[in-house]
Every structure is written in structure tokens, then in C-alpha cells.
């Protein structure tokens, strides 16, 4: 029978098949952990006297609560709270005790969990990957079955390397046609979510397909899969191909030599068979997508940046419009910006930083606007500095920080002030996500950078060269 990428991944990891009474027991090839969602899981192991079954398949990093400012004169990192520091030390202790490799504070490979997995090639096609973070869907860009789990499940995986799961339904979202120049993966994601809704993918494992997806770089595919959860889908995937293999080859944890050739041969079998059936098929017109922003408090409230704020159609939309203070029928470009955040596992990779730098080069961040640029990992920070991007940002008046989640989740002290309008390359525009009372507008890196320069929400095309940029 013809099988989809998802079917193949699922079938290959069933330890005990699903029955009416019980979910399947699935084997997990890679378990990523971080400081926020793991302490209570380790506590359960403690209570039950269980060891970590496969420390060799577990990778820890520090990202959510860690400061993005360097140590102060006393050599101490400026933690937001004592609890935040305690959480970091707790993970260090848990990893030491259980023999888990931790990308610690001074590790040159440290970074946001969904950025470092691919960078180290821990993320590979064909793997099952879980993490106590909903944006684990990011790793699906490599043709992996990757999804976010809760802390109880983190405990299950630590103890058994397995998880209880019912097989979700499958959905294929096909982007037809080619993207226009200046339109990126974040715009594709926001346009897709606007089309199907914040719960449109609920209960589905989604495969992104079509020529516009095949043309994307790995970094852009990660941005797209990252946002699958914002459409309600726990899983977002792209079939592995030469672009995938080229990205992985030679990286730290990629198979080497003959093992590499054998792995690639296996991975080539993974893409969906031609006649594979999906429970749901969605088509998105890629050519019609423009640079997008969000105007509400749910990621599906998205529209082209050059447009006007729509009229609210119901109570929820009216409340959202009141909170966001966008006047109906007025251009988004009239909205004054207070802060810009370029970072997060959605858009903090080299391609994103280069895109932002292209807009900021030789220009100045508008008076009164604070712009924060936070690379996704140490490796990215080093590379960006080698390319001189940090100087471009500094000369423009933006702040160049240490890697971490930062203002994506705003729990490390980086946050907006009440009432501020923040244009952010992260993934959630929920009320208060970036600080109490903060109004978040989601956008791609070029749009965010353009808004920092203009001081109001701005279309990036006015700042970009006319030459068509590569599809990255």
C-alpha cells in the first residue's frame, strides 16, 4: 500500500501497536530537554527510583531562562530571578547525575533547543524526536517525526525512551506556484495559518509539499515547520531531499563515511509514495503570498503588511482589536513601533540575520525604538560576528545579544513594557506573551528590521535591493 512520509516514520517506530484500549507505544530516537519543562519529570524518576534509560539518546541545552546579556563586573550572569538561576542549576545537576550531555553555559555549541539539534545533526531524517516544547515541530523540516510533549511525558521518555501515542490524522498542505521575490518562509507560514485557522491543523500531522517548499533552504523549511503548531498541528514535516542531505553532511553528529552513504540511501526511501493518501488536502497559492504581519492576538489574524486593519467581525475580534489598538480600515503602516525583536527558534538563523542586516546596513533604527537581535545559538553568534553582521546591527543602533529564547517567551528578563507595540520574528502574538500588556506583531526578519528603521510597521521591499533574493 502507498504510504506517506508520516506513515513510514510512524510504522518504523511502533514498539507495541495501538489497539482500541491503548495507544501505541512509540520508540523515541532523540529526546531534547531544557531547563523549564524537565525538573518535575526528573523529580518523578527520583520518586520512583528509576534511572534514565537512554542518556545516549537524550540531549540537554539551556535556553529559556538564560540571560542574553553577558556577565556583570562580578562575573555573574544577570538572571531575571533567583528561581531562573535555580532552574538552570537544577538542569546542570540532573544532567550530571544521569550522565546526560548538556550544552552548558560556556559550551560553544549551546543555543535554542530547536536550533542546536539541527546544527549538530542530532536531528536527522527518519528519526522520532520529542521535547517538552511545542515548537519541536521545527525538526520535521528534516523529514523527522517531531512533536512537543508535556512534562509527564518527558518523564515517560526519560524512564522508558518511549511514549504513548494515538496515530493522528494526516494532512498535506501543498504550496502551489513560486514565491515572489522578498517573500520568505515566515510569510508562507502566516499566510497558511490565516487560511486554515489557528486550529485548522488540530489532530493532524502535516506534511508541507509543493514546488515552493522544495525550493526552500533548510533554514526556511525549519521556519515553516516551526509554525505548524500555530495552526494547531503538533507535527509539520518536509520530505528529505538533496537540500536536506547537503545541510547535514559533515556536521558533528552526522554519520560519516560509509555510514553516511548508507544513511542517505535509507533517507531517500522516506518521501511519501506517489499515491499516498491523506485524510485532508489543503492548497495554498504561493505566488499570491506577500510579506505578512499579524494584527490580532492569535497567529491566524495575519494579513499583508501593506494592507489595512480589517473590521472586527465578532466579540473576540473586537477585543483583540481593542488590545492591539489597530484602527479599522487604516493602514498598518500608521502603527508606531516601540520595540523590535529578531530572534527565536522561528527566525534566528544565519539566513534570518543576513536578511535583517541587509535592511539595516547603513541605516539607523528610528528614534525611540529599541531593537534586540538575539542569535539562535553560539555557533550562529560566532558566524554572524565573523561576517561582521554584529557591526552592521550596532552601527544601526540595534542591540546584539547572547543566544537564547529571550523575548519569544520573555521569561529571562527580556521583555516589552505594558502597552508597547513589538514587531517580533517569534511565533506567538498572545496577550502578554512578550510581557504584561505588550502588543505583539509577528513578522519575518526583513519586515521586523524595516519596522525598526521606519519606526512604524513597514513593508521591507522599500529597503531591499531589486535583485531577486534566493529562495532562502
Amino acid at each position, binding site marked *: 500500500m502507498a504510504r506517506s512520509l508520516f506513515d513510514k516514520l510512524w510504522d518504523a517506530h511502533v514498539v507495541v501497536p495501538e489497539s482500541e484500549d491503548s495507544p501505541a507505544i512509540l520508540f523515541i530516537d532523540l529526546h531534547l530537554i531544557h531547563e523549564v519543562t524537565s525538573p*518535575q519529570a526528573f523529580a518523578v524518576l527520583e520518586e520512583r527510583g528509576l534511572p534514565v534509560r537512554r542518556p545516549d539518546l537524550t540531549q540537554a541545552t539551556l535556553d529559556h531562562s538564560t540571560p542574553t546579556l553577558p556577565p556583570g563586573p562580578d562575573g555573574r550572569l544577570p538572571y531575571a530571578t533567583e528561581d531562573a538561576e535555580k532552574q538552570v542549576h537544577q538542569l546542570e545537576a540532573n544532567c550530571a547525575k544521569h550522565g546526560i550531555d548538556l550544552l552548558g553555559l560556556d559550551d560553544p555549541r549551546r543555543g535554542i533547543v530547536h536550533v542546536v539539534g539541527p546544527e549538530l545533526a542530532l536531528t536527522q531524517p527518519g528519526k522520532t524526536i520529542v521535547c517538552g516544547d511545542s515548537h519541536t515541530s521545527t525538526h520535521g523540516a528534516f523529514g523527522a517525526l517531531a512533536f512537543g*510533549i*508535556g512534562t509527564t511525558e518527558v518523564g*515517560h521518555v526519560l524512564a*522508558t525512551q518511549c511514549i504513548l501515542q494515538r496515530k493522528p490524522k494526516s494532512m498535506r498542505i501543498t504550496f502551489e506556484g513560486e514565491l515572489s521575490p522578498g517573500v520568505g518562509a515566515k510569510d508562507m507560514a502566516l499566510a497558511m495559518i490565516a487560511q486554515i485557522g489557528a486550529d485548522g491543523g488540530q489532530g493532524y500531522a502535516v506534511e508541507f509539499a509543493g514546488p515552493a517548499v522544495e525550493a526552500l533552504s533548510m533554514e526556511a523549511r525549519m521556519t515553516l515547520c516551526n509554525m505548524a503548531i500555530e495552526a*494547531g498541528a*503538533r507535527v509539520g514535516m518536509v520530505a528529505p531531499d538533496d537540500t536536506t542531505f547537503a545541510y547535514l553532511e559533515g556536521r558533528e553528529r552526522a554519520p560519516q563515511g560509509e555510514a553516511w552513504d548508507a544513511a542517505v540511501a535509507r533517507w531517500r526511501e522516506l518521501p511519501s509514495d506517489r499515491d499516498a493518501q491523506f485524510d485532508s488536502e489543503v492548497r495554498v497559492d504561493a505566488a499570491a503570498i506577500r510579506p505578512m504581519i499579524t494584527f490580532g492576538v492569535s497567529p491566524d489574524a495575519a494579513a499583508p503588511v501593506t494592507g489595512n486593519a480589517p473590521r472586527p467581525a465578532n466579540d473576540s475580534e473586537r477585543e483583540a482589536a481593542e488590545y492591539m489598538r489597530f484602527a479599522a480600515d487604516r493602514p498598518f503602516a500608521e502603527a508606531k513601533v516601540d520595540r523590535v525583536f529578531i530572534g527565536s527558534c522561528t527566525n534566528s538563523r544565519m539566513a534570518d540575520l543576513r536578511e535583517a542586516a541587509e535592511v539595516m546596513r547603513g541605516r539607523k533604527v528610528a528614534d525611540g525604538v529599541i531593537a534586540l537581535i538575539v542569535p539562535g545559538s553560539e555557533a550562529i553568534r560566532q558566524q554572524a560576528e565573523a561576517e561582521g553582521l554584529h557591526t552592521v546591527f550596532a552601527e544601526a543602533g540595534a542591540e546584539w545579544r547572547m543566544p537564547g529564547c529571550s523575548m519569544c517567551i520573555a*521569561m529571562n528578563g527580556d521583555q516589552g513594557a505594558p502597552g508597547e507595540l513589538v514587531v517580533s520574528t517569534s511565533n506567538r502574538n498572545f496577550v*502578554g506573551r512578550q510581557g*504584561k500588556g505588550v502588543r505583539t506583531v509577528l513578522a519575518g526578519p526583513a519586515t521586523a528590521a524595516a519596522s525598526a528603521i521606519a519606526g512604524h510597521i513597514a513593508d521591507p521591499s522599500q529597503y531591499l535591493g531589486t535583485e531577486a533574493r534566493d529562495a532562502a
Partner: protein
Amino acid sequence: MQPEPFNRLEARTLVVRQSNIDTDQIIPARFLTTTTREGLGKSAFYDWRYTEDDQPKNASPFPVAGAGDRQVLVAGANFGCGSSREHAPWALLDYGFRAVISSDIADIFKSNALKNGLLPVEVDQRTHAALLERPGIRIVIDLESCTLETEDDIRAQFTVEPFARRCLLDGVDPLGHIVAHEEAIAAYEAAAA
């Protein structure tokens, strides 16, 4: 930690009509720097309950003291979307809720809630609309028969994933269930190596 068994709940409802109530509303991220799961009730819906300078808001639908006898939260569509933080159901339980009713509840939240004895109940649009109209109504939720019934005769069936239902009714331990398949896991590992 095993949740308390859940069988039948008789309580009143607390209604919030908004759709897309996300996990950042249920518990803002700044309260996630904890290493335990206890005592999160004070942070539940914090920014709905308190002003920016931490004063109780008069107009909040959520009583400062806790849910009291309104143990059933009825909310708009797509409840619990957003992050995978299990702190969300921990906070709701500690605040005093035992069940959440909506027309659809986000996958990860649902799974987290079930593991902690907070019953997620998805009902049809008509029932949902009717419950949204009647804040504070008495309701009986029976997990054995998967039915709910209100004092003014709204009745509905719902479904709960059968394994999770058994865990809640009979106190089956999911981790124990996986551990019981040790042989199959070891065989899988051996074959994969």
C-alpha cells in the same frame, strides 16, 4: 505522581466566552521558573485576575480566592492552544477546576490535562453555545457513561480517549503501562542497534 481518580463530578460552571484562550493566558511564562508543580493556582489566569501592579481586578471572571464550587470551566473554542507547558493544567487544578468544557481543546493541552486528572470535555456546537449562555449553572459530568447533564436539562455525550479514561477511572498508571512492555522495548532496541 498519580492524579486523583475521576468518576463523577457535580459542580457549577464558570464561563469565559473568548476563543483561543492560550496557555500564556492560563499561566504566564514568568511563572514557569519553578522546579516543582505545587502551588501554581495563584498564578492561574494571573493577568486576568490582577492588574499590572498586582491588585485584584474587580471585573475578573475568576474569583481571587479560587474556583470554589465552580469547578467546571466553560470556555470558547480552541481552548489551551499554544505551548506544551504542563504548568497550565497544574495551575488550573490547583486553582480548583476539575474539568474544562469547550467545542475543541488543543491537542497537547488535552493530553497534559488528562494526565493530571483535569477532565477535558469536548462538546458539540449546540451544547457549547448553550453552556456559554448559562454561567454558574449546576452540572453533572459522568466519566463512566461519558455524559454531562445540567440542572435545566442540557444533555450531551462526549468522548475521551479510552486509555486515558481508564487511567482516570481505575487509577491505571501510564508509566507503569509502558514499563510493563519492557521486553518489547528491549527487543526494539536490539533490532535497531
